């Protein structure tokens, strides 16, 4: 076992898969000699050569098309989109092309592509670098969206994503890259996609979150413990498809729920979870299900972002509201 940050665990997962399968290719802007702007691909080109780990010209749609074409030739591409805010440039490849190929070929061709991208706010990036756009992709059929919240899970989920025979968008919250270390096994392991994890057990209220908001939710839960409120925290880990079973099991137990997302409120992942809870578990509910989200504005880089982003205090308030309903 080694102590790793999330970004080290991500590098380790790619190293593992580059070793494991010669069809795995890692590429993107600055991922070669430079090791990526966040150093996610640090040392990989040196270890596996330029044929397997390489720089691309600066064009995201080109990177998406390259991945699709390489997959058609039997490769297992792991392209990096330097910041998820550049999703719009590669949107056709991700939401109009790679996700449709299995369907359009009647199951005869697949696209085992893992699109990795840093996302999320709170690290004072320039405009278009911090947006939480996972909802756009989660609404797209034919693609999975995975968001790890810890180093251990990042490694296992990324290995599973790369081995998956369908396209996966793997989103890495920038604030979590180096925020803490934990024990990560050096050997390979996988974590099943589409399975949520109960990060903290509790009996009074369920908090559903993903990405950096898992940590804010855990902090809120700790604070509320002192006031005698016992909070259960669920980390979705995969936001498409969603593990509703784990969510419903918890909600049926607690009878109260708060859903947390860093993204803007409208038409998001949280709205979807709330809708499913009311369809499947309304008779178990003791209070309305509330959401903690950012406001429906453009991401306010970067002076106002700390106020704009949901924090553990916002979560505490909403939990109290459902408990005291």
């Amino acid at each position: 076992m080694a102590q790793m940050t999330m970004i080290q665990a991500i590098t380790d997962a790619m190293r593992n898969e580059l070793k494991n399968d010669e069809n795995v290719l890692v590429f993107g802007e600055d991922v070669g000699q430079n090791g990526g702007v966040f150093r996610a691909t640090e040392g990989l080109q040196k270890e596996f050569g330029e044929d397997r780990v390489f720089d691309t010209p600066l064009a995201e749609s080109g990177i998406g098309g390259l991945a699709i074409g390489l997959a058609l030739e039997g490769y297992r591409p792991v392209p990096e989109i330097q910041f998820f805010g550049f999703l719009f440039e590669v949107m056709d490849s991700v939401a109009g092309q790679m996700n449709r190929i299995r369907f359009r070929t009647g199951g005869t061709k697949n696209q085992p592509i893992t699109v990795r991208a840093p996302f999320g706010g709170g690290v004072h990036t320039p405009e278009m670098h911090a947006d939480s756009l996972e909802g756009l992709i989660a609404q797209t059929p034919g693609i999975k969206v995975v968001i790890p919240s810890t180093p251990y899970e990042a490694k296992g989920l990324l290995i599973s994503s790369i081995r998956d025979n369908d396209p996966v968008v793997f989103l890495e919250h920038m604030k979590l890259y180096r925020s803490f270390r934990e024990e990560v096994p050096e050997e390979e392991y996988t974590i099943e996609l589409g399975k949520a994890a109960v990060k903290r057990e509790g009996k009074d209220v369920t908090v559903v979150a993903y990405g950096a908001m898992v940590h804010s939710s855990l902090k809120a839960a700790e604070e509320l413990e002192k006031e005698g409120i016992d909070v259960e925290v669920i980390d979705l880990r995969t936001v498409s498809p969603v593990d509703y079973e784990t969510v419903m099991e918890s909600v049926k137990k607690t009878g109260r729920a708060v859903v947390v997302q860093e993204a803007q409120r409208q038409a998001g992942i949280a709205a979807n979870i709330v809708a499913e809870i009311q369809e499947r578990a309304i008779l178990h509910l003791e209070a309305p299900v509330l959401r903690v989200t950012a406001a429906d504005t453009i991401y306010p880089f970067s002076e106002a972002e700390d106020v704009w982003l949901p924090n553990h205090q916002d979560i505490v308030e909403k939990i109290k509201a459902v408990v005291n309903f």
Partner: protein
Amino acid sequence: MTILKHVLESVENQFETFQILNEDGKIVNKADMPELSDEELKELMRRMVYTRVLDQRSIALNRQGRLGFYAPTAGQEASQLGSHFALEKEDYLLPGYRDVPQLIWQGLPLHQAFLWSRGHFAGGQFPEDVRALFPQIIIGAQYVQAAGVALGIKKRGKQAVAVTWTGDGGTSQGDFYEGMNFAGAYKAPAIFIAQNNGFAISVPREKQSSAKTLAQKAIAAGIEGIQVDGMDVLAVYAATKHARNRAINGEGPTLIETLTYRYGPHTMSGDDPTRYRSDELNSEWEKKDPLIRFRKFLEGKKLWSEEEEAKVIEDAKNDIKEAIKKADQAPKQKVTDLIGFMYEELPVNLQAQMEEYQAKESK
């Protein structure tokens, strides 16, 4: 700024239209005449005639409601089939929506092409030895994908190329530049074909770009570009063969602009070409017709006769009749079939939806 103007002119003047057969079917460029046997020359003619019949029948079938989406091909036979004739079985095709004939001559059974037109999943289940993606609907998207296929071919060390077709409108897309630029940067074995039929639906070529030729757009990507008489099947063949040889030899991609014309509407989904094209323009291009020109050439060599042509037309009609029958026999596609094609393993949400539709469809 006269220096810049001078540079631009000197660049543009390099892109003269490459031609081998003139409108009278006479060889005007003996030096570049491709080495094709008499049998191969006849095969080219056979394919063009067959494809013209296929187009006429497809339009009729579409009007009868027996085909779905259809983009007419008449006029573009030399451009489509001349380029395809230079390819090999191991090459990978990334066609645009009008480029169904290339898929058929690559080995896609006719009834599957009809099923593709109807949106039936069986139309996308290509035989394993047909190395191709289904026709692209998003203009230009196939260009970036072709760069990827070509890079894959290069990494595998295969003696093959990735070939893609778009239209004149496609050359205005960002993906057009990105695809050529990526393939150029990796010296990947790709052939990019821009079939310039003069109109992107209704917008004339002059309104797409200030560039005098579309072929010159290759220069910015640092790759070779060539403008070809797209009504001259020998010129299109020779240019594509040249591009393929370059690609196989590791010299990187080529952009080929074919000057051509579609006689019909953009697609059969309501386009009315009389709104943007004149009768004069139509007849001007009909004089350049690829079939008339090549027929004259072959007749001059005593390689083609009316009887042979009648036989091809007859064969095509019979094949089409059989194929549409076969397409009609395909099982009606069900939503549950389609749900099953979404992922390798069905996620929970689709499992539940699968059950819903199974119940609906069993009623």
